[in-house]
């Protein structure tokens, strides 16, 4: 039992400490593909360190929401790793505290807090960013709910561990159209939710900003916390995509120290593969204009519907 608790703490620490590395890796590879040298892989760590040591500037119009939002967002991202299989695929003491839907709720709570913070200070960019991201989440939410419904129909359970076990045991479920269409649908969601093209711009200009516009008013340590939270969100979504849906292999089964170390290595390898796929999309795809935002999400929605239909048929 005590080792299980240590494991759970390790899962959270893994997400906390490795998330800037994932961000750094993606940025670096993207630049390398465009034949420039790019920032170092550890640059996000340096950025966070720098921001944590800067002075805090607070807008005059800010209320208590402005201070609460980063804490809420950061805490939400620290809560989700307890619920999902990061290092081990055994259920840990608190991992059945909430199912997949509950994890989704906590993730959404984090972005909701940032949304309120964007509106709070009354600056025009915060309002624009909040309204844009609300529109995106209105478009993305049906797909997310359908993907979750598809997963629970597939595994007859709402716990991510059960889905992982099912895919490991039964190779025919892994190759069934229901599962692979869910993977495609979730990949579309992954691109949208982790601020990637074709919807989010890779250049940091105010007119293209969606998620960043919400936090333009922040500075210093609070900005560092918010940036860290968004990197952790990316890491968590990658974890769900890899460990629950796409690559259920390479996770510690018994929970020994050697197994933990191996699963961290496997995690880095798997994330590297997914990050490369994301980089390919970012390189070949140009940013969509505002009125075509629904297209990738509609494709994801279509795949989720197809997955559920084929799950009922086959």
């Amino acid at each position, binding site marked *: 039992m005590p080792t299980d608790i240590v494991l759970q703490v390790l899962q959270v620490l893994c997400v906390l400490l490795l998330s800037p590395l994932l961000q750094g890796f993606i940025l670096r590879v993207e630049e390398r593909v465009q034949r420039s040298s790019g920032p170092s892989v550890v640059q996000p760590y340096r950025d966070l360190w720098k921001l944590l040591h800067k002075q805090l500037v607070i807008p005059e119009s800010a209320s208590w929401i402005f201070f609460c939002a980063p804490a809420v967002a950061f805490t939400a991202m620290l809560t989700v790793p307890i619920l999902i299989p990061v290092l081990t695929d055994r259920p840990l003491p608190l991992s059945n505290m909430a199912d997949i839907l509950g994890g989704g709720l906590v993730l959404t709570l984090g972005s909701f807090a940032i949304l309120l913070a964007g509106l709070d200070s009354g600056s025009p960019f915060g309002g624009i960013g909040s309204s844009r991201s609300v529109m995106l989440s209105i478009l993305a939410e049906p797909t997310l709910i359908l993907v979750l419904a598809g997963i629970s129909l597939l595994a007859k359970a709402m716990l991510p561990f059960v889905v992982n076990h099912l895919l490991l045991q039964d190779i*025919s479920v892994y*190759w*069934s*159209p229901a599962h692979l*269409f869910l993977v495609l649908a979730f990949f579309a969601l992954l691109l949208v939710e982790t601020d990637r093209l074709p919807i989010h711009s890779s250049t940091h200009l105010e007119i293209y900003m969606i998620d960043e516009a919400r936090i333009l008013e922040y500075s210093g340590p609070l900005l560092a916390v918010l940036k860290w939270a968004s990197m952790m969100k990316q890491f968590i979504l990658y974890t769900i995509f890899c460990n629950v849906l796409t690559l259920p292999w390479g996770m510690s089964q018994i929970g020994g120290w050697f197994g933990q170390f191996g699963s961290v290595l496997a995690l880095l390898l798997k994330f590297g593969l997914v990050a490369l796929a994301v980089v390919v999309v970012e390189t070949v795809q140009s940013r969509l204009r505002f009125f075509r935002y629904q297209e990738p999400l509609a494709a994801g929605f279509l795949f989720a519907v*197809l997955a559920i239909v*084929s799950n009922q*048929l*086959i």
Partner: protein
Amino acid sequence: MFLTTLNPLQASIFSLLAIVSLVLAFVMLGSHWLQNYVFAFAAQSWLIACLSASVAFFGHYPELYAVAVLTALFRGLVLPYLLLGIVKKLNVKREIHTILQPSSSLVIGAIAVMFAFVVANHMNRDTSTAGRVVVLALTIMISMKLLGYLMLAVRDEAISQILGLLVLENGIFLGSQILVPGMPTLIEIVILFDLLVVVACFGVLVRFLLVHVGSTSSRQMNRLVG
């Protein structure tokens, strides 16, 4: 019949390949750009080649490997290459004067799939894994044929009409691979060469039309010319 000894893994692989090729038929139906049609057709042909190869592997039909290679070579490479050549000569990049908008033709396509499912479900009373794969294969075969007819009916560029014909034929080929994999190899090879002849003839016809009429759209050709 090898479908009676189907295990769950084979059933998933067959249904996956079949459903993805149906999705690609919808990609063709929902796009304006002629180049996208050709790419979707090529991808579909590669999937059907994979299907032939997996039927050959799981059902022990060694001659189907040859069919798979020929399918990938002719339908997946030669036909798309010839079609892209025609598209380049035509100077028409997209269907502009469609009778139906892509979105409404997608809806009609979805209705066609439902109709195909009802028909296929009536033909089969077996509820085992094999029975469900048969229903799926029949559904996809009939719906790809209907989608091919739909493309022939609502599009007026010569090139999209060839592609409608090819989709129709791909549907029949896909269904026959799953339902009657023991079909004589000779017939399948004859079909492949048939297609090659069809595309070559269309190529000649398109050039003729371009020189003498100046257009390949069937809308422009509604008068009898002596």
